[in-house]
C-alpha cells in the first residue's frame, strides 16, 4: 500500500510543479516594503485607562470581518492586544459578515456582547427595537475628536447610542487590465461580456441599493412596487454573477478569480495597495454613503469597560492605525490631520463635499413591512433558478417516488406469497 501513497505524492507534486511553470506570469503577491514603521499608541490620560487593572474583566467585541488592525503584518498595531496591555481588560473578539447577521445573532442568539459596530440604518433599527444601551458620553472624553459633521447624525439623533468608527462609500472594484472602459456605471454589473466574472453583495440592503440606483429609485424606498422591480432587476443579473460574497471578495479579486465587484471603498483601498491591477470607481450616478458606529447592545455586562474600549478606539493613534490598515475613512478629526495628503486627495476615501452632498445617500431604517418584503424578495431572488428552470426534475422525482412505492408493494406481495408456501 505504501507504493500507492508514494505514487500519489509523486503525482500531486508533479502536477503542481507543472502548474507552477505555466503560471509564471502571475506576479508575486507579497509586496515587500523597504521600511516598516512600527505603530505605537500614546494616550494622554493613563489614569483613565488603569481603573480596571487587576480585576480580571473581559469584554466581548463583535465586529465586521477584516475591520480592525490585528497585528497580522509587521509593524501593524494589534488594537485589542494594546487595549489589554493598557487596561488589563481582556477582549473576546469575534466577527460577522453583514448587518443582518449581527441583527439575527443579537435578536435570537442570546449571546451577550459588550461592543458591536453596526451601520447607520441598522443602528436606527436597533434603537427603535430597544436593543441598544445609551452611551454615557462623559465616559468618552475622546468623543471630542469626532468631526462636527458626524455628531448628531440622522440615524441616531443626539448621538445617544453610537460613536462613529469609520465611514465610506460603495463603488466598483475592477481589474483595469481587463475592463478597459470609461464612465463605468452600475450597469457594468449586468454586462454579459463579463458574465461569470462578476461578484455581488451577499446582503439584501447593499444589493437592492445598486438595483434601485440603476432604476432611479430612492435608496430608501419603501414602495412595494419599486422593491419588486428592484428584485426583478437583481434576478436578471443572476445569470452573469459568479458568486454572492462579502469578505470573500479579497480572495477572489486578489487571485484574479473575478474581475468586477461592487464593494466598500475602504476595502478597495486595501486591495489596490496589494494588487496593482485593480482599480476603483464610484459611479457618477450616485451611491450609498455609510457610517459604521460603535454601540453597546442591551445586556452588556460591563458598560464602563465597554465605554473605555470605545474611548480607546477614538484615540487619534488608534483611529489612525485603523484607518491606515483597513483603509476606511475616519470620522476622527485628529486622525484625519495625521493622514498623508496622498490619501486625503485620492478621491476614494475622502470624496469632495459636493459629491457627497449631491450624489450620496445614507440608508435609513425601513418600515417593518418594507424590511420583511425586502428579505422575502431577496431569498426568492437568491433561490430562483439561474438557468432556465429544469422542468424534468419535478416529474422525474415524482416518478422515482411512485416507482419506489410500486416496487415496495410488489415485493411485499411476493414475500407474502412465499411465506404462504
Amino acid at each position, binding site marked *: 500500500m505504501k507504493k500507492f501513497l508514494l505514487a500519489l505524492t509523486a503525482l500531486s507534486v508533479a*502536477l503542481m510543479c507543472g502548474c507552477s511553470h505555466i*503560471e509564471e506570469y502571475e506576479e508575486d503577491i507579497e509586496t515587500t516594503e523597504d521600511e516598516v514603521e512600527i505603530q505605537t499608541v500614546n494616550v494622554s490620560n493613563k489614569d483613565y485607562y488603569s481603573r480596571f487593572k487587576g480585576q480580571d474583566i473581559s469584554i466581548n467585541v463583535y465586529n465586521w470581518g477584516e475591520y480592525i488592525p490585528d497585528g497580522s503584518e509587521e509593524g501593524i498595531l494589534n488594537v485589542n492586544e494594546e487595549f489589554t496591555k493598557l487596561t488589563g481588560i481582556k477582549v473576546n473578539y469575534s466577527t460577522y459578515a453583514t448587518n443582518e447577521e449581527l441583527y439575527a445573532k443579537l435578536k*435570537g442568539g442570546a449571546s451577550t456582547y459588550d461592543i458591536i459596530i453596526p451601520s447607520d440604518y441598522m443602528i436606527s433599527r436597533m434603537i427603535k427595537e430597544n436593543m441598544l444601551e445609551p452611551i454615557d458620553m462623559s465616559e468618552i472624553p475622546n468623543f471630542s475628536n469626532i468631526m462636527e459633521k458626524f455628531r448628531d447624525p440622522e440615524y441616531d439623533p443626539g448621538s445617544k447610542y453610537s460613536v462613529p468608527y469609520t465611514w465610506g462609500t460603495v463603488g466598483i472594484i475592477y481589474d483595469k487590465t481587463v475592463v478597459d472602459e470609461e464612465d463605468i456605471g452600475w450597469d457594468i454589473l449586468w454586462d454579459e461580456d463579463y458574465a461569470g466574472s462578476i461578484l455581488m453583495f451577499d446582503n439584501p440592503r447593499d444589493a437592492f441599493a445598486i438595483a434601485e440606483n440603476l432604476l432611479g429609485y430612492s435608496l430608501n424606498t419603501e414602495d412595494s412596487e419599486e422593491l419588486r422591480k428592484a428584485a426583478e432587476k437583481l434576478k436578471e443579473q443572476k445569470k452573469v454573477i459568479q458568486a454572492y460574497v462579502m469578505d470573500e471578495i479579497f480572495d477572489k479579486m486578489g487571485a484574479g*478569480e473575478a474581475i468586477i465587484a461592487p464593494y466598500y471603498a475602504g476595502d478597495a483601498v486595501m486591495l489596490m495597495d496589494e494588487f496593482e491591477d485593480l482599480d476603483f470607481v464610484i459611479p457618477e450616478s450616485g451611491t450609498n454613503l455609510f457610517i459604521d458606529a460603535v454601540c453597546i447592545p442591551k445586556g452588556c455586562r460591563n458598560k464602563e469597560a465597554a465605554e473605555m474600549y470605545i474611548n480607546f478606539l477614538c484615540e487619534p493613534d488608534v483611529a489612525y492605525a485603523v484607518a491606515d490598515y483597513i483603509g476606511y475613512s475616519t470620522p476622527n478629526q485628529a486622525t484625519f490631520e495625521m493622514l498623508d495628503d496622498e490619501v486625503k486627495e485620492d478621491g476614494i476615501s475622502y470624496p469632495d463635499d459636493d459629491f457627497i452632498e449631491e450624489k450620496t445617500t445614507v440608508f435609513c431604517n425601513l418600515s417593518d413591512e418594507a424590511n420583511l418584503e425586502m428579505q422575502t424578495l431577496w*431569498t426568492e431572488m*437568491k433561490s430562483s433558478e*439561474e438557468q432556465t428552470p429544469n422542468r424534468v426534475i419535478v416529474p422525474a*422525482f415524482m416518478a422515482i417516488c411512485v416507482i419506489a412505492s410500486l416496487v*415496495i408493494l410488489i415485493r411485499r406481495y411476493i414475500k407474502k406469497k412465499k411465506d404462504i408456501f
Partner: protein
Amino acid sequence: MKKLISAPYLLWMAVFIIIPLIMVAYFAFTTTDGAFTLDNLAAVSQYSNIFIRSIWLAAIATVICLIISYPLALILARIDKSYQSTVLMIVMLPMWMNFLLRTYAWMTLLGNNGLINAFFGLFGLGPFKMLNTQGAVVLGMVYNYLPFMILPLYNVLAKLDKSVIEAAQDLGCNNTKTLIKVIVPLSMPGIMSGITMVFVPAISTFIISRMLGGGSNLLIGDLIEMQFLGNSYNPNLGAAISLVLMVIILLIMTILNQFDEDDDRVLM
C-alpha cells in the same frame, strides 16, 4: 434500582431532545406574538424550488457515492486480511480531517485559476467554470460523505459468508450473475444504511453550498440558516422549514426501510 439508573438520561432526553423538537413545531405554527398561524407553513411552499433542488442534488450525490463505493468496498473486502485494516485506515483517513478544511481545499482546486484548470491549461484546454456551480456542490457532497457509504458497505461485504458465493458459483452462476443475484441482495442492509447516511447530511448541508455553490445555489440548509443566523431573520419561518425537512427525511427513510428486510441496521 437498575431502572433508576437510566433516569438521568431519560430526563436529559426529554429536556434536550424531545422538548426542543416540540419547540420547533411550536415556532412553526405561531407568529412572532405567539398566536396560532398556518402562514409559516404556507410560506414554505414558496421555496419549493429549493426543496426540489436539495433533494435532487442530494440524490445525485448519493447515487454517485454508491456507484463509487460499491466496487471499492468489494475490493476492500477481498484484500488479504493482513492488509485490510491498513488499507481501510488509509481510505478513512481524510474523513478525520475537519470537513470545512476539506471543502475549502476544493475551493482552491476548482477555481478559474485553480490547479485543475491550470492542469487543463497545459493541454490548451479551458479554463472551465467549475466553482460556484451545482456540479461543484455535488462534488463537495460526494467528497465529504463518501466514507459514510464505504464503511457500511464494507462492513456488510466483509462479513459475507464466502461459502454462499461458492455455492452460487457451483450452481452455475457466472461472476456477474453471482454479483446481482447473491452479493447485492445480501448487502442490501449496508446499501440502505449507506444511502441514509449520505442522503441526510447531503440534503441539509449549508456549508458545501455556500463554499462551493457561490451563494446562488441555495439548499434547504442555507434557507434554514438564513432564517436563524443569516440575512433574513425569521425564526418562525425557519422552524417551519425545519419541520418540513424532518417530514421529508422521515418519508424517504420509511420508503428506504421497506427495502431493508432485516431489521438489523448496520450503523457505523
